[in-house]
């Protein structure tokens, strides 16, 4: 028995639709960018927890900054790398609000390393979301602290050379050692299963904030198809083969 598509497409049969927290703006991200999925997940979690009017998000610098055009919550824009410092201030002034920072690897792990480490060490009661794609996406694919050994970027066209450029930085493991953090996890958004896991992690981050447990830190290992010069599907495969062995997924700390 065949059913007409028009009979299926009815409001009562709806199982998934765009979150109402997202604006109607078309995202500026390149096709297949993990930022879009991460943004969508934050929006869905905010909608499900019903905290849209209680969230203050901190925008960083990089591709991630334009998230303030897509999420209908209150925003503050921080200087490059200073989102955790601004998040600290916002949370201390308004402890009744949920504060979430959203940063890329160039922002969080390079210029903002000091702010990141000290905010986590103080155990500021905020949720930090860290998008790690191993490259500076917005400025043209330069090498980031998280660029893997041998990975090509525009400032290391022959691949990262450890002798010359130093070692890639596992900032999430570094942060997990700090006493202020309550939840440190590394997730990804390359498959539907991974997306669901990441969503659970973000929900936990908001719940920890409500329970005043300390800093929750969620790293999302992401792709940068334009920077890596691969198609979105190839990027996901490359990430599975190269990023995951160095940045293994899973909870690092949960207390």
């Amino acid at each position, binding site marked *: *028995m*065949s*059913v007409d*598509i028009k*009979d*299926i*497409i*009815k409001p009562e*049969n*709806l*199982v*998934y*639709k*765009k*979150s109402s927290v*997202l604006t109607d703006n*078309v*995202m500026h*991200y*390149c*096709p*297949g*960018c*993990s*930022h*879009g*999925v991460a943004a*969508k997940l934050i929006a869905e979690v905010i909608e499900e927890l019903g905290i849209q009017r209680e969230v203050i998000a901190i925008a960083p610098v990089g591709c991630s900054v334009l998230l303030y055009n897509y999420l209908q919550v209150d925003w503050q824009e921080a200087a490059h790398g200073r989102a955790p410092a601004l998040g600290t201030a916002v949370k201390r002034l308004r402890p009744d609000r949920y504060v979430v920072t959203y940063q890329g690897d160039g922002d969080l792990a390079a210029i903002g390393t000091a702010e990141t480490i000290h905010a986590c060490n103080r155990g500021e009661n905020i949720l930090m979301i860290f998008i790690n794609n191993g490259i500076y996406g917005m400025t043209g694919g330069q090498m980031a602290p998280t660029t893997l050994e041998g990975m090509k970027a525009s400032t290391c066209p022959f691949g990262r050379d450890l002798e010359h450029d130093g070692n890639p930085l596992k900032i999430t493991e570094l942060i997990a050692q700090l006493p202020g953090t309550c939840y440190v996890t590394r997730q990804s*958004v*390359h*498959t*539907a299963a991974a*997306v*669901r896991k990441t969503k659970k992690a973000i929900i936990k981050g908001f719940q920890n904030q409500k329970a005043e447990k300390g800093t929750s830190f969620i790293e999302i290992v992401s792709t940068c*198809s334009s920077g890596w010069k691969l*198609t*979105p*599907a190839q990027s*996901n495969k490359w990430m599975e083969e190269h990023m995951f062995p160095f940045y293994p997924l899973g909870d690092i700390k949960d207390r």
Partner: protein
Amino acid sequence: MAKIKGAIVVDAVACKGCALCVEACPSKTIGLAKEVNAKGYNFAYMAVPDTCIGCANCAMVCPDSCITVYKMKVAEPA
């Protein structure tokens, strides 16, 4: 026996043709259109509408949130 039938609606204006939904679809329902949208992307569409099971995997991985998923049970004659 009841059978699950699904359908998706793709926002062809916002779709950037990244094809992540094509990869994520377990029933190989989705394909990229030969036509392009206003931005010049080959947008996603239901290439084989009969096989859709409404699992919403495509919508979960869509970076631009342009897929809406519907699902219903269809009673099949024994």
